[in-house]
């Protein structure tokens, strides 16, 4: 049994989600190979070679793979998928984008967003925004899987010494092309992998007021998040959304400020280790999952909390 893990990266850095995906692969047992498909991405392959538990790194390096176009990435995976029993992607924007293309071409079901490995063909996955957990069994010869990163503790990024093998890169499909990217530059940790997250909701009232969370996040070394209501209202950017259809996070500390706690939001954060809720409405559902609730006006409590840290 040999497992292929598709590396998540930006051509310079191996992303943390890959470590969680390798962790899921380790639960299956068997050799773990990591595919780095990118453009000028040798540094990523070298990082992947050090990841604990990886026995081989395959590097497909070509300009057509630099921007993560799903057509090209999926074709690259399919070019080598023949030798593997399992193909694992992180359930990130890029993993979700490419994995189903691979599964459909292999004529196999995809198992999305697994949170536990029961055996080499049986997995647990959340459905209905995490309000139910399904145990599913695949009878397909190859299991194409996306891994919910919060379900698996990351393996160590260092300590391994796998060989890196260059493989032939597939040709550009010519079907799509990359036009541009607007990535918010931030010194804060990445939302999906942060150890602390400070999230704001509609209770903040405006984009201006949302800045109230900055000093608190600075003190905690936290990433910033938001509820769907806050994003829809324009208080926070799209990629801050935590919830069923946004980011799924499970930090050590999650501070929900002015968030009422719709089930779709809870779906994205209820596996956090410690949840703090600050809301002036004592009846808000967020208090039903919070370890520590503070019923207070956030405009007083947040600066006070920031000062006390």
């Amino acid at each position, binding site marked *: 049994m040999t497992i292929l893990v598709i590396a998540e990266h930006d051509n310079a850095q191996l992303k943390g989600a890959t470590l969680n995906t390798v962790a899921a692969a380790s639960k299956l047992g068997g050799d773990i190979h990591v595919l780095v498909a990118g453009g000028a991405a040798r540094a990523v392959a070298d990082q992947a070679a050090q990841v604990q538990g990886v026995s081989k790194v395959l590097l497909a390096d070509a300009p057509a793979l630099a921007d993560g176009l*799903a057509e090209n990435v999926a074709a690259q995976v399919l070019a080598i998928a023949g030798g593997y029993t399992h193909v694992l992607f992180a359930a990130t*924007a*890029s993993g*979700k*984008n490419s*994995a*189903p*293309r*691979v599964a*459909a071409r292999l*004529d196999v*079901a*995809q*198992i*999305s*967003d697994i949170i536990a490995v029961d055996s080499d063909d*049986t997995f647990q996955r*959340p*459905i*209905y925004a*995490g*309000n*139910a*957990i399904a*145990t599913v069994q695949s*009878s*397909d010869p190859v299991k194409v899987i996306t891994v919910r990163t919060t379900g698996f503790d990351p393996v160590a990024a260092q300590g391994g010494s796998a060989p890196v093998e260059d493989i032939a890169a597939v040709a550009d499909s010519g*079907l*799509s*092309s*990359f*036009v*541009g*990217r*607007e*990535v918010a530059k931030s010194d804060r940790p*990445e939302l999906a992998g942060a150890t602390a997250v400070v999230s704001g909701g509609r209770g903040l009232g405006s984009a201006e007021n949302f800045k109230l969370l900055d000093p608190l996040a600075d003190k*905690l070394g936290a990433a910033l998040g938001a509820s*769907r209501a806050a*994003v829809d209202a324009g208080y926070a*950017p*799209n*990629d801050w959304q935590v919830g*069923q*259809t946004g980011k799924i996070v499970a930090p050590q500390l999650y501070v929900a400020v002015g968030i009422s706690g719709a089930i*779709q939001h809870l779906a994205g954060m209820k596996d956090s*280790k*410690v*949840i*703090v809720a600050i809301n002036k409405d*004592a009846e808000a559902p967020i208090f*039903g*999952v919070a*370890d*520590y609730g*503070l019923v*207070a006006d956030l405009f007083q409590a947040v600066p*006070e909390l920031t000062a*006390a*840290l």
Partner: protein
Amino acid sequence: MKVLVPVKRVVDYNVKVRVKSDQSGVDTANVKMSMNPFDEIAVEEAMRLKEKGVAQEVFVVSCGTAQCQETLRTAMAIGADRAALVQTDVELQPLAVAKLLQALVQKEKPELVILGKQAIDDDANQTGQMLASLLDWPQATFASKVEVADGVATVTREVDGGLETLALKLPAIITTDLRLNEPRYVTLPNIMKAKKKPLDVLSPEDLGVDVTPRLKTLKVVEPPVRSAGVVVPDVATLVDKLKNEAKVI
């Protein structure tokens, strides 16, 4: 240009689902059902393309039980021109739906298929990408902005860390994210009009597709319950608890 929009009938967004006591699944009997919210956004986007003169016809499709006709009528009340139901009582998984849609695309020859990025019941997020793969078409998932001109769809996508923009050669697949548009309200006159629009019913066999499920659901259980903690009286107590009890700061 013809635009195809697949729509799924799902448990309504606001319903708190319950797991059946025999662990065979989620109880959907006597529960309010609606169109998957992402599919509603897809229908709306197709209508906007039609209103701009980019698309001439919006064709909606659903796969599932006879009750999916209601969902198709809703889509036609939003404005879709006609509909087809691929009717079956078999549990449909994303790969099977993608194959049914592939057969319909080959028959109907749309230049654009707009789907919701995921259904809020199985949360799979697969069908659009699978359809694109089976057809060997380009795809832009998680779209927040769509422009179509001169045989190219320029799509802005919501990705981790921000936005990216792709150019797709038509024919192509687009899947919708939440902020692509805000679907219009359905009016009573349009609901009445939708009742008269054509709705074909066909079977998976008519399309030559084997829809046998590939994944077997062994059991469905409630997630572990997170018990509510304590309400603290003030910020000082909160800081003390975080430091000395939870030890997270």
